[in-house]
């Protein structure tokens, strides 16, 4: 364990602090992606490399990109047309880039290390996770599938564009 965990943990806490203190959504999302990457390194240190890959792919790859697309889609007003050019100046990328380089150096060091995980960490290989997931927890997997189906249907139902405002009293109060 030792310094690898402390460096990744410090990067995680620092980037999360930067997330909750930014006023700009895009800056906060950049730092939040760094926070997710550092948590993935911590997963690797704790003997769960498959979960670290899932964290990077699903969280930082899918969910964050979804939120970034959503933010970009909402800010299409005429007064915010030039916001992207102002948000993403090269100065903004310095902080997350430095934190990402620290994480990359630490990950390369961990991979090049000949010995496995130190300390009292027990590595659980992905095969055991898969055997457990599709063995005793098959009902929970089906429930997760139904939850994702409900999420798809709910997002489609809620995200439809209506020409008329749904609630009459909101229509009255906004006039």
């Amino acid at each position, binding site marked *: 364990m030792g310094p690898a965990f402390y460096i990744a943990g410090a990067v995680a806490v620092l980037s999360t602090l930067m997330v909750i203190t930014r006023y700009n959504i895009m800056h906060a999302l950049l730092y939040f992606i760094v926070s997710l990457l550092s948590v993935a390194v911590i997963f690797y240190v704790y003997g*769960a490399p*498959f*979960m670290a890959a899932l964290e990077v792919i699903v969280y930082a790859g899918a969910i964050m990109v979804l939120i970034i697309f959503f933010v970009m889609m909402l800010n299409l007003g005429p007064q915010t047309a030039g916001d992207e050019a102002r948000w993403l100046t090269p100065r903004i990328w310095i902080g997350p880039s430095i934190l990402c380089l620290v994480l990359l150096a630490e990950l390369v060091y961990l991979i090049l290390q000949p010995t496995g995980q130190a300390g009292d960490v027990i590595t659980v290989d992905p095969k055991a*996770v898969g055997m457990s997931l599709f063995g005793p927890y098959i009902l929970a997997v089906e429930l997760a599938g139904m939850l994702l189906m409900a999420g798809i249907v709910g*997002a489609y139902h809620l995200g439809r564009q209506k020409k008329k405002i749904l609630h009459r009293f909101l229509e009255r109060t906004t006039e």
Partner: protein
Amino acid sequence: MMNTTMEGLVLAGILFVLGLISMLIRRNIIFMLISVEIMLNAAGLAFIVAAARWGQPEGQVMFMFILAMAAAEVSVGLALILQIYHQLKTLDSDEASKMRG
């Protein structure tokens, strides 16, 4: 001197409290959604640490369920935010307090 498990749990607790603070002090709805993501991520970290402590795969199984739940929650939450933005023309959550009674 803390052992390995206690260090990971303390880090998960710190991240969870940071997400909770952000949830309490922020009034932008997208920031509140990101705060929920921070807290879910901290909970998943606690599960991974527990799996490494006992050497059992159940912690990682629970992390995969947390991942699926976070994906569904983000899609539905973003659709709700889109509706609120189209109706109120703002992302301030205090503006959405008109619906009472």
